[in-house]
């Protein structure tokens, strides 16, 4: 057994274990930390598939931005009326059934699909100059979605500001 295979196995195991820890952990901050771990392990997957730029974006935006936001929100709302909140589950059995059904459907259709089978036998796995090709494609073929995305980000910033702003009472004005 090659070292690469063992490392890949450990990586898969770590990703699955940290994802499960995110959904079953009782304490919300702990599950946010496990979410950060799972996103970082996904970045390692990206690097091993030759997507270095995407791994950098993943670490910066997800593990840097989103986890910070989530931790801030948890700390802001952890206590309501001086009562510490305990996280509970509800409807575990139906949720387990539904999610395992989705998992088996996905696995079955990729296992049975001849297209995916031929891809798995001979993946092209070409290692072209990845950042150069990506930026050329992004700014030539995909430039319109890119600009629309910037508009979406602007709308998200304004929307989040308007929603989270505290309304001033009339006396204060």
């Amino acid at each position: 057994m090659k070292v690469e295979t063992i490392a890949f196995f450990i990586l898969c195991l770590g990703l699955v274990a940290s994802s499960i820890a995110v959904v079953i952990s009782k304490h919300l901050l702990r599950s946010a930390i496990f979410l950060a771990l799972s996103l970082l392990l996904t970045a390692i997957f990206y690097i091993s598939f030759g997507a270095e730029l995407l791994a950098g974006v993943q670490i910066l935006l997800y593990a840097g931005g989103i986890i910070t936001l989530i931790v801030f929100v948890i700390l802001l709302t952890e206590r309501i009326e001086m009562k510490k909140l305990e996280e509970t589950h509800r409807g575990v059995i139906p949720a387990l059934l539904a999610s395992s059904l989705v998992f088996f459907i996905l696995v079955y259709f990729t296992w049975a699909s001849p297209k995916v089978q031929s891809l798995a036998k001979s993946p092209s796995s070409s290692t072209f100059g990845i950042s150069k090709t990506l930026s050329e494609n992004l700014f030539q073929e995909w430039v319109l979605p890119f600009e629309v995305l910037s508009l979406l980000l602007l709308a998200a910033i304004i929307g989040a500001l308007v929603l989270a702003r505290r309304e001033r009472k009339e006396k204060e004005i």
Partner: protein
Amino acid sequence: MSLYPTLWVAFLVFSVGLFGVLSRRHLVAIIMGIELMFNAANLALVTIGWAYGVITGQIIALFAIAITVSEVAVGLALFLLLERVRKTVYADETNLMKG
């Protein structure tokens, strides 16, 4: 690196995220489950793009990451608003739009 194991790991993470969305009560925990599902979808996109040898998978994953970030920002703002107005953080106690 091989195609099938990575795809299955992505599907497993997706199902775990779906389980979290369906079974957690706290709204931030539900948002974290949605994050896991997005993450698994991105991983599957990158894997399939690698197997085809095209860059399009990575570009779509890049767009998906940006869309996820804005979605989480708006979702957490909605959560803060809900916590301030209704004094609850649980999804099953928010029945404002139930008829």
